[in-house]
């Protein structure tokens, strides 16, 4: 870990919306390549990038579609740059093939998705949290990646920096999953001095050409080091199942080996990746599990429930994927119920139900999106759950 390069960092206190805070987070993290295609409510991220990059030595290009944008950033990343793209709704669907390509090629990169209500064109451009399972499993085949859920503009900044750091540490695509409200709400964002922003540089190999294998995990790690073209390594990168040199290998054994490591490098490192925010868990009978804008609405309901004497705690998912299984499992033996409000008809609540395995109740509070929940609806679910 080193510190951000002061050249691009907008140190100070600002009023920014979540989208713009993501742009500043990317710049602070050292992102200097971005590709995009406009779609509300995510466009502000690339608009700010387009304005800011030429002043900080970055390159941005608007592509002809999301299919192009979502692989152009991978070209940039393989070129050696820190790279990202941004989208929403239909654009996120178009990007799926390349999220899978980034996963199998272990390309460090960041995709930002400002969620809007779907399916399809849906309710442009009202909020939703309907892409949480797509974030996890949207590309075909099996793979694991990292997805983060900010609930404020400040966290949009912080988690975009974090996304770039995790991408480098695990050579994996990292998704930053906003929702329309978080993307468009304006709040104070404090950007620290560059020297206080931790930034993970790419893990360049020191091995010589011929010695270095692009897909061989570094010693004591599950993650391979990196290199870039132009250095004599004659690297080969393919979306086919490959061996440690990156050469296609069409055997079940090679597939097993590759897939296992892609899976393990995330799952076995969950303790290092997973972040959450907890409040009042000690002695809680009910725990509200929420994320993104829904966590802000839930706060009101939690407060009201406490006033009614309910012992209610809160667990906010900052990392959605990998899922904080261990934490949920531990709580499940102590509480009566989890209450899970989300702007979909039940996605993260399914995962909670799976982890809980019947040890306590899981009470979903579904909402189709378009608006956020009314706090009373969540309050009623808490009161119901505690009975």
């Amino acid at each position, binding site marked *: 870990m*080193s510190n951000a390069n002061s*050249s691009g960092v907008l140190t100070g206190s600002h009023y920014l919306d979540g989208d713009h805070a993501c742009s500043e987070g990317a710049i602070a993290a050292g992102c*200097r*390549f971005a*590709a995009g295609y406009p779609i509300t409510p995510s466009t502000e991220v690339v608009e700010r990038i387009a304005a800011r990059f*030429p*002043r*900080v*030595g*970055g*390159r941005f*290009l608007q*592509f*002809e*579609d999301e*299919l*192009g*944008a979502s*692989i*152009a*950033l*991978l*070209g*940039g*990343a*393989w*070129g*050696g*740059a820190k*790279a990202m793209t941004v989208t929403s709704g239909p654009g996120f669907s178009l990007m799926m*093939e*390349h999220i899978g*390509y980034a996963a199998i090629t272990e390309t460090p990169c960041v995709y930002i998705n400002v969620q809007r209500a779907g399916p399809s064109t849906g309710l442009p451009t009202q909020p939703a949290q309907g892409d949480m399972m797509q974030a996890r499993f949207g590309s075909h085949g099996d793979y694991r990646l990292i997805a983060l859920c900010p609930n404020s503009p400040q966290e949009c900044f912080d988690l975009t920096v974090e996304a770039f750091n995790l991408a480098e540490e695990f050579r994996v695509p990292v998704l930053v999953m906003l929702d329309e409200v978080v993307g468009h709400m304006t709040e104070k964002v404090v950007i620290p001095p560059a020297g206080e922003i931790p930034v993970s*540089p*790419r893990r*360049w190999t020191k091995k010589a050409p011929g010695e270095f294998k692009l897909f061989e995990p570094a010693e004591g790690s599950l993650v391979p080091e990196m290199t*870039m*073209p*132009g*250095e*004599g*390594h*004659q*690297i*080969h*990168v*393919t*979306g*086919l199942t490959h061996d440690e040199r990156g*050469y*296609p290998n069409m055997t079940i054994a090679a597939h097993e080996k590759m897939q296992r490591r892609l899976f393990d490098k995330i799952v076995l490192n969950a303790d290092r990746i997973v972040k959450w925010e907890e409040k009042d868990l000690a002695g809680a009978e009910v725990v509200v599990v929420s994320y993104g804008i829904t966590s802000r609405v839930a706060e009101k309901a939690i407060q009201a429930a406490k006033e009614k004497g309910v012992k209610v705690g809160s667990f906010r998912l900052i990392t959605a994927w990998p899922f904080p299984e261990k934490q949920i499992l531990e709580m499940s033996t102590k509480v009566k119920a989890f209450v899970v409000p989300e702007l979909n008809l039940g996605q993260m609540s399914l995962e909670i139900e799976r982890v809980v395995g019947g040890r306590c109740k899981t009470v979903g509070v579904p909402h189709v999106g378009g608006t956020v929940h009314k706090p009373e609806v969540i309050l009623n679910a808490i009161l119901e759950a505690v009975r």
Partner: protein
Amino acid sequence: MSAAVRENPADKYLRKERMPSIWCPGCGIGTTVNCFTRALDASGYDLEKVAVVSGIGCTGRVAGYLKLDSFHTTHGRAIPFATGLKLARPDLKVVVYSGDGDLSAIGGNHLIHAARRNADLLVVCVNNLTYGMTGGQVTPTTPQPAIASTTPYGAFEQSFNLPHLVASCGGVYVARWTAYHVRQIAKSMGEALQKKGFRFIEIIAPCPTLYLRRNKLGEGLDEMKFYQEKSVVMNGADTREVSLDFRDEIPVGKFVDIERPTLEEAMESQLSKALGAKYVPYSLPVKA
């Protein structure tokens, strides 16, 4: 791959440990790769600074056999990947090597936009008039009424005239040859490697296994004879005049060779004009 390629001095440009290739005997793709290695050899370039990007298909496998930094991407998306790579790494020469279906069907949108914005890429398109990898289906370049597995009664759509498509979108170098024209291909590739901007070389090549067999056109060698007989060199021709009809004459040659600012040059000049001293040009990634 054909024996000719395996025993070639071009071997030093190939990942020999990956041979034999997946290509069928008589396939034209290996011939074009042979020409490419000759062009590289003649160019005197630092090969460390040449990267090749392919999409998916039989031709898409080229990236995997060249001993260069090489990227085998997704179907149709070699061009945007390469555009990103080139923007991030202006010090590299980036070559896209892919098939007619990959570049002009699923990747058609990227092809026209990369030509329009004059992305600094050399694109080699091996046009075997079919989707080889998936078993010989109809592509945008299949001439009517050729038989393909998905047009069992003959193709009925008008096919693309690729040189005209690319030229009218703004490509700065456009040429077409057949797999018979090995010296011309190598020369054209060498010339195009020296140029900047969006350069496009179409190579008509035999797919004996699918296209030729299904259309009862003989072996790869018969097709080479056909190319020899039917090719008409039309250097500098108006690209509207170079469309391909089924078993008709094949207009070949260099059709376009012009200059205009590349994507990168246009981007830099506009930004520095607009921002003056505030403009901070992109610098190459450094290893921390």
